[in-house]
């Protein structure tokens, strides 16, 4: 049974979301990344970490809004989680729907392929032969996903594997479920 997640996502975005011009969003994020690179003197590994940490702080709050607007209950399995993230979560917040790909046989790992990344529009990485090998420009997404999933008791390892800004053919994020956290109070119930 597959619920019409795509329709739910589109409906929430169209009717229950206030929208803003994506350019302000893109430019603001760009300004943050550029400032971080300056602050850390182009130590891109540190920049990646800081972006992930900022994303984490966003994720733990973002999940509340997500649950409030969608009223979803527990997911049956990780596959359903994947569907909801890509068709509802991303749609609701970034107005884009990544594709779920490479679902592993044990059902614990998948990749998200982003065709359209509003964070990275019109970005060209610096030509210092370092950024293109070390910087994951949109690393804030990694933190957001990790933080949000942690709040629903899923301990997931999230990381970028490909980025078109680096010259790869696509932008891909890998999500791997480590374990389901023991919870005292199940999410969604009192």
């Amino acid at each position, binding site marked *: 049974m597959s619920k019409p997640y795509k329709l739910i996502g589109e409906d929430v*975005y169209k009717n229950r*979301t*206030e*929208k*803003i*011009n*994506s*350019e*302000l*969003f893109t*430019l*603001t*994020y760009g*300004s*943050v990344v*550029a*400032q971080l690179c300056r*602050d850390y003197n182009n130590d891109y590994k540190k920049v990646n970490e800081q972006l992930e940490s*900022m994303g984490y*702080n*966003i994720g733990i*709050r*973002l999940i509340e*809004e997500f649950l409030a607007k969608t009223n979803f209950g527990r997911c049956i399995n990780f596959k359903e989680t994947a569907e909801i993230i890509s068709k509802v979560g991303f749609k*609701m*917040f*970034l*107005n884009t729907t990544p594709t779920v790909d490479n679902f592993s046989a044990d059902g614990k790992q998948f990749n998200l392929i982003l065709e359209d990344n*509003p964070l990275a529009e*019109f*970005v*060209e*990485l*610096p*030509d210092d*032969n370092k*950024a*293109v*090998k070390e910087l994951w420009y949109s690393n*804030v997404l990694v933190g957001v996903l990790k933080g949000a999933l942690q709040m629903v008791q899923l301990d997931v390892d999230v990381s970028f594997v490909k980025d*078109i*800004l*680096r*010259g790869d053919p696509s932008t891909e994020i890998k999500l791997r479920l480590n374990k389901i956290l023991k919870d005292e109070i199940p999410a969604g119930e009192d």
Partner: protein
Amino acid sequence: MSRILSSAKPIQGIGYDPLIGPQRVEEVEASANNSTSVDHVTPPNFNYDRNLHRMKHDVSLSSFSFLFCELVSWSRERANGIQELEKRLNGLGYTIGLKYLELLGLRENYITNTTTSKNGLNRDIKIIQMLEFIHTTFWKALFGKTADNLERSQDNVCNYMITDNDPLANRYISVPSEFQNFNCSAFVAGIIEGMLDSAYFQADVSAHTVETKENPNRTVFLIQFDEAVIKREQIRFGS
């Protein structure tokens, strides 16, 4: 002979170097054929093929709010005190303003060229034109509505004020009481300052909260133009 060369081979670029200056077509083709160090990876750039004028693309306001909140939080960690925090936000907005002015100018130009027959006239040379541009076009592009008020200060001829009754940036942020004089719209003030500076209307822009009963978040952006700008205006346009 170079014309034959250019039509036979695809156009190459090796990139401009200000220390060397312009390169001849033959030199460009010659060095493009010598590979640079094998290890040096140049990041790709497909942006030039993309269309700047495509259909409006938007994201949810909450995404921006979350990002902005985190930005304020991060700036607060690195700043010592309110003044420095405002300066940081202003600085982050400033770089955006520099770019946004050019983008908006290009867009307006494009719209004028494709919808009317007149040639794109799109530089503002008078203070009042620039302020109108900010008050209407810029505010609309960013926030979906025009700003609520634009006025000139009675006391100081260099000062102008733009008012927004419900600034988007402040909507989801609650300022703790220790930060009484602080307004997150310092960020937007920075954007405005960047735009004015790059258009050669140097100014200092700051955001102040002036609440009213109906609008607790009402923010006034105070624009203080440099004396030189006011003087130039008087000389050129006699106001």
